[in-house]
């Protein structure tokens, strides 16, 4: 009897192979990224990259499209109470989590109750600590009550960390282990995370948006060295990579199968000046420094031309940004201002950089050389992360802060002016609280920032933020330098992957020819 079965079995195998035929041509894409992931839990992540990756399997109530415009995702619509305290959010129906459970208002409650509980010790606690409580009105409606009015709250919900986690999974794995078993509503299911090598996600068949995702899986592959990232693009081992180092752009452009994209960003690079210390307490000195710096040259030399001179305090692309214009480059005027301020022969000072990579090295060298032209002698120190924390970010006493000229950058991860101004220029944001490294204090700007958060009227907000930005421009606690461009490369067969202005990725439409 036995031999009889053999042809049958072979036949079955052949048939099975045939049936599996179309599936064999799996559309798997690989993204080569610049560093390893710290976690898959967006509430416990502080790096843009881990949060961007987590969007494979998680979605929030709101989100940003590829141009950083706020869009509803799992939410249908929302209402704010008159006092700006109560947000009632209508939820999409028919959405399922990867574990098969339905997405309902209890998931919203579970997710926000988790992050607002300080016992869970999540790194994104501060972003949501203003939530007093979250209630389930009915299955399709959630209500969030705030402690104090905060008009940028919907932007906080759209922040890549504000995702909805399956309550069933949260219960099963607990607060810590959920990071190793992420379960969300996103287009892809989590498959495997080999911390050293890659993170794999596969298509989720029950995804609520019909026809999506268009590919079968994504492999997120951290490739640290930028030359190696360029190499995997050329060999076809990866279809998308970000960031591409400026000096590699020309080489990769020459490859017929690759596209190089320079996307606009909201990453602004600036030089902050410690306004509490001599000689930077004198606005004339600060203006002189602004006049002395040729921003075009900085963009060209240090950023290989992939940056534009900064023409605003809050960069274009962030809501309520106002163009204040580029400070003109005028050495004579700078010298005159210095003389007026009582420093006709210039002075000596420290120039620190918050980063120690090559670009920062080039920027500080250009700055040093240009400041030298007006008689300001600077001593450059490129701070390593630990030093930066010790000497700048955690410095306890503002009066003795050793920081003078400080090269640093920022991008407002909520896409809104509040998070572009408050951490950097509000008088209560001096280190060690937040990052007002200019130790800037202006009653007027403080008032504008405070009032803008209290009002829900858009026109009123725009007016307040405009006034704040114009005041800051005149007071010049910073020398705004450049707004970066984000350089990514993708294989021409790949479409629908974008680098967003904050350096995150949008890959809802990802497809492979």
């Amino acid at each position, binding site marked *: 009897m036995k031999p009889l079965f053999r042809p049958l079995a072979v036949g079955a195998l052949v048939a099975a192979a045939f049936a599996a035929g179309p599936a064999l041509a799996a559309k798997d894409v690989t993204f080569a990224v610049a560093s390893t992931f710290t976690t898959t839990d967006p509430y416990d992540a502080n790096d843009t990259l881990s949060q961007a990756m987590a969007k494979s399997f998680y979605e929030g109530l709101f989100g940003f499209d590829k141009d950083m415009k706020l869009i509803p995702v799992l939410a249908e619509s929302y209402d704010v109470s008159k006092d700006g305290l109560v947000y009632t959010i209508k939820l999409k129906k028919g959405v399922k989590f990867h574990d098969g459970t339905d997405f309902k208002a209890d998931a919203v409650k579970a997710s926000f109750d988790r992050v607002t509980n300080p016992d869970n010790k999540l*790194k994104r606690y501060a972003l949501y600590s203003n939530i007093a409580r979250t209630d389930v009105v009915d299955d399709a409606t959630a209500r969030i009550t705030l402690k104090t009015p905060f008009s940028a709250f919907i932007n906080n919900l759209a922040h890549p960390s504000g995702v909805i986690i399956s309550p069933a999974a949260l219960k099963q794995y607990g607060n810590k282990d959920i990071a190793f078993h992420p379960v969300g509503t996103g287009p892809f299911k989590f498959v495997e995370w080999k911390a050293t090598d890659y993170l794999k996600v596969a298509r989720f068949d029950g995804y609520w948006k019909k026809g999506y995702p268009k590919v079968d899986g994504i492999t997120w592959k951290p490739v640290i060295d930028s030359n190696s990232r360029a190499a995997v693009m050329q060999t076809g081992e990866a279809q998308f990579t970000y960031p591409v180092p400026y000096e590699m752009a020309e080489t990769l452009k020459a490859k017929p199968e690759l596209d190089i994209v320079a996307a606009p960003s909201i990453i602004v690079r600036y030089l902050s000046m410690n306004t509490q210390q001599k000689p930077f307490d004198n606005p004339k000195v600060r203006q002189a420094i602004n006049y002395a710096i040729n921003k075009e040259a900085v963009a060209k030399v240090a950023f290989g031309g992939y940056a534009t001179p900064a023409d605003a305090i809050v960069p274009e692309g962030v809501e309520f940004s106002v163009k204040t214009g580029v400070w003109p480059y005028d050495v004579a005027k700078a010298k005159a201002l210095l003389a007026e301020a009582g420093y006709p022969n210039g002075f000596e000072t420290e120039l620190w950089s918050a980063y120690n990579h090559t670009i920062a090295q080039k920027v500080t060298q250009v700055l040093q050389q240009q400041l030298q032209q007006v008689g300001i002698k600077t001593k450059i120190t490129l701070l390593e992360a630990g030093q930066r924390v010790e000497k700048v970010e955690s410095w306890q006493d503002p009066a003795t802060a050793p920081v003078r000229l400080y090269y640093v950058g920022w991008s407002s991860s909520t896409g809104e002016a509040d998070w572009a101004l408050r*951490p950097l220029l509000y008088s209560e944001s001096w280190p060690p609280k937040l990052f007002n490294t200019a130790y800037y204090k202006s009653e007027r700007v403080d008032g504008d920032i405070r009032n803008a958060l209290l009002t829900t009227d858009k026109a009123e907000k725009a007016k307040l933020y405009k006034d704040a930005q114009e005041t800051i421009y005149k007071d010049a606690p910073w020398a705004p330098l450049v707004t970066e461009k984000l350089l990514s490369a993708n294989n021409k067969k790949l479409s629908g992957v974008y680098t967003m202005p904050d350096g995150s990725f949008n890959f809802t439409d990802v497809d492979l020819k």
Partner: protein
Amino acid sequence: MLQYIVKRLLGLVPTLLIVGVLVFLLVHLLPGDPARLAAGPDANPETVQLVRKDLGLDRPLPQQFLRFVAGALTGDFGKSMRTKRQVSTEIADRFAPTFWLTVCAMAWSVVFGMGIGIVSAVWRNRWPDRLGMTLAVSGISFPAFALGMVLMQVFAVQLNWLPTVGADTWKHYILPSLTLGAAVAAIMARFTRSSFVDILQEDFIRTARAKGLSEPVVVAKHALRNALIPVLTMMGLQFGFLLGGSIVVEVVFNWPGMGRLLVDAVDMRDYPVIQALVLLFSLEFILINLIVDVLYGLINPTIRFR
């Protein structure tokens, strides 16, 4: 001999203890607050406090130290501050790739290095010597990252014969082990040569030649054994260094090894990982030294263990 080995192994304990204390103190002396670093660029002071508690850094230093020692004794090095995974799993994941890469690199570089060294010594000051030593000097002076990039550009990007990054198949091992081994091969060649040149002038070599033994037998049997002792010492040292994970090669080839882990850990002030890694590196060095000492005895039976 067994007694000797046991004695040496017992000697490990105080050494590791001292290393443990030193590394704990040094790591905590590094500038920079790990809680601040872990909390990230957007964090406010409350978040930093939360993170500090989460990482156990709010406890007094002596208490942290006791926890570290007690944990280390039971093989528990705590959790990585960066990834929140067990330090032992973090290291275990990366140990094998680094170990096998080291073995591959050592294997070819020892064979080539000694080969070149012997040839150079035998044909001293003639063209094989010049060629061999030119190669060796280039091997030492050519930086590993440049060599790695050139190899990758040629064999992976242009010719498409080998994969670029990762550690999945045997093919992945070729380029990194070539890069990693180049400097070792060069050092081995120079060491073997100088050691051989000395030995070849010894009386017993002249005796062997006078006995009428053929030159290959003289070189392979009489000279090699005796020349091997300093070479072996060098080999042990190099092996120990490579086991620590070559940062440059691991970055260029995206090798999931311990060098990269150490860099990541130092960047983020990931105390538990740094401590465990330094302890592991010391242990490796001590064990390799022990093995080298035992091998001395096998090569030269006149060496006695006490």
